[in-house]
Every structure is written in structure tokens, then in C-alpha cells.
């Protein structure tokens, strides 16, 4: 197998795995306050997940080699998802009655 490509794939996989392990720390952050909503943890979790998703799409799914239209479409979905999730969270929390 093409060594450069193989190295790149392995590097991407290692980076994604390292970020996932870092999420373990993020999820356990302030364990004693785990029953209190935390906007920093939530926004970090969503942003980190979307970064991972984009890396999977670009590298594993090879969208970086695809025509610009496909790159833009996938990026657009990542942005729409980010805006939708973060927007719902912050607007929802502002009007929360719970």
C-alpha cells in the first residue's frame, strides 16, 4: 500500500482516537457538579464532535479529493448541524423552565 497514504490514514486515526480520549476527561470534568448544566462542556463537546466528523469526511471519506461542490455541501452540513445544535442549546437554556 502507498506508504504516504497509509501513514496519513494512521495519523488521522491516532489523532481522532486521542481527541476521543480527551473527551473522556471533558465528560468527567467537574464530576461533583455533573448534575448542573455546563455550557462550556456542552459547546466543547459539540464543537469537538463536529471537528472529528469533518476530519472523518475529509480524510477517511476522501472528500478532500472530491470536486469543490461535494466539499462545500459536506462543510455546509457540518455548519448547519453546529448552528442548529448550539443554537438550540443556548436558546433553549435561555427559556428553560426546568
Amino acid at each position: 500500500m502507498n506508504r504516504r497514504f497509509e501513514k496519513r490514514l494512521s495519523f488521522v486515526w491516532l489523532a481522532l482516537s486521542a481527541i476521543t480520549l480527551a473527551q473522556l476527561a471533558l465528560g468527567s470534568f467537574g464530576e461533583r457538579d455533573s448534575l448542573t448544566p455546563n455550557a462550556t462542556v456542552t459547546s466543547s463537546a459539540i464543537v469537538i464532535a463536529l471537528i472529528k466528523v469533518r476530519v472523518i469526511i475529509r480524510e477517511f471519506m476522501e472528500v478532500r479529493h472530491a470536486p469543490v461542490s461535494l466539499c462545500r455541501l459536506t462543510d455546509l452540513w457540518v455548519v448547519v448541524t453546529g448552528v442548529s445544535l448550539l443554537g438550540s442549546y443556548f436558546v433553549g437554556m435561555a427559556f428553560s423552565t426546568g
Partner: protein
Amino acid sequence: MTTVAGAEPRADGPDEEERTRGAPFVPGQPDMWVFVLFEALVFTSYFTVYVIRRTQSPALFLQSQAHLDLRVGVFNTLVLLVSSWAVARCVQAGREGSHRTALNNAYLTMLFGVVFLVSKVLEWTTEIEQGFSFTTDEFFSFYYFLTAIHFLHLLIGFVVLGVAVYQIRSPARRSQELVETCATYWHTIDFLWVLIFALLYVMR
């Protein structure tokens, strides 16, 4: 893969010369990409409804979320990442004509898929044994709904991987484009799980 600039779709993948030239190509069949984008949007709507409902009863969601084991979520994510890495290697090996390596990587992908399935079933069993079922509360309804619908996609993924293996095994029917299409589906299962993991296990 399908070349752009009006070229006819080819049954096999881009050769090394084409790659070196850096000509853009769509990995797999474009129809699969339409399906992937559609599925991604459907899941975005599920996730959005979940986040909105969560903000209306934050205490209840956090209390129920505390019963999930974050380490299991991390383990499942790592397992799917390995499977995605393996299927990406399968595509590349097939493109270079190393069909034995491609086949081994397809089997490796299946193996990690099975590990994920077993781990998920064990996790569900543990939750149910502890008294947390679909009807326990709103958090667990979302938890079972999102993980079950993802599980269903994963089961379909095994059929898709079976098609890839069937293609790779025989030189007569080998189609690199079809193998790439199968890999695209499998990666979709992976990235959807990455979001499910963040929303169910990590967010507060």
C-alpha cells in the same frame, strides 16, 4: 469513483497516475452521497429535537445521563474509528490492486463492527437490568431511540460490507467504485456515532 468534467463513470478506481495528477473525483457512486447527505440531515433533526427537549428539563436529563458509563461510550467510539480506518485502508489497497490486503481490511472492519454490536447490546442489557428502559423517562427514550436507529444502520452496514467482500473476492465482478460506495456508507455510521456519543454521553 466517478471522474468529473463530463467523463464517463468508470468501474474501477482512480489509478496512481490519476491520483498524482490530483484530478478531483467523487469516491464511490454519487447516489450514495445523496443518501449520505439525506441521512445526515435526518439525524441533524433528531439531534436538534433532543437538544431542545433536553434544555427544557436539564436536571432530569443530567440525572439520567449520570447512569451511563462514559468509558463504554469512549470504547465504542474508538472501536468504530478503528473500523473506519480499516475500511479506508481497504479502499486504498483495492485501488492499488492489492486485493488480498483489501479483503483482510474488509474483514477487520467487520470484526470491529461486531465488537461494537456486542458492546452496545451489553450496555443496553446493563441499563435494562438497572431498571432503565425506553419508558423510564425522556432521556432514556432518546437514548434508546438514537442508539437503536444507529444500531439498525450498523446492521445494514454488514450487508453493505458483505457486498464489498463479494466484489473484492472475484476478479470477474470486482468493482472499485462499488467498494468505495460501501466504504462511504460505513464511514457515515462512524461519524453519526461520533455525534451521538457527544450528545448522549458528554454534553451537560
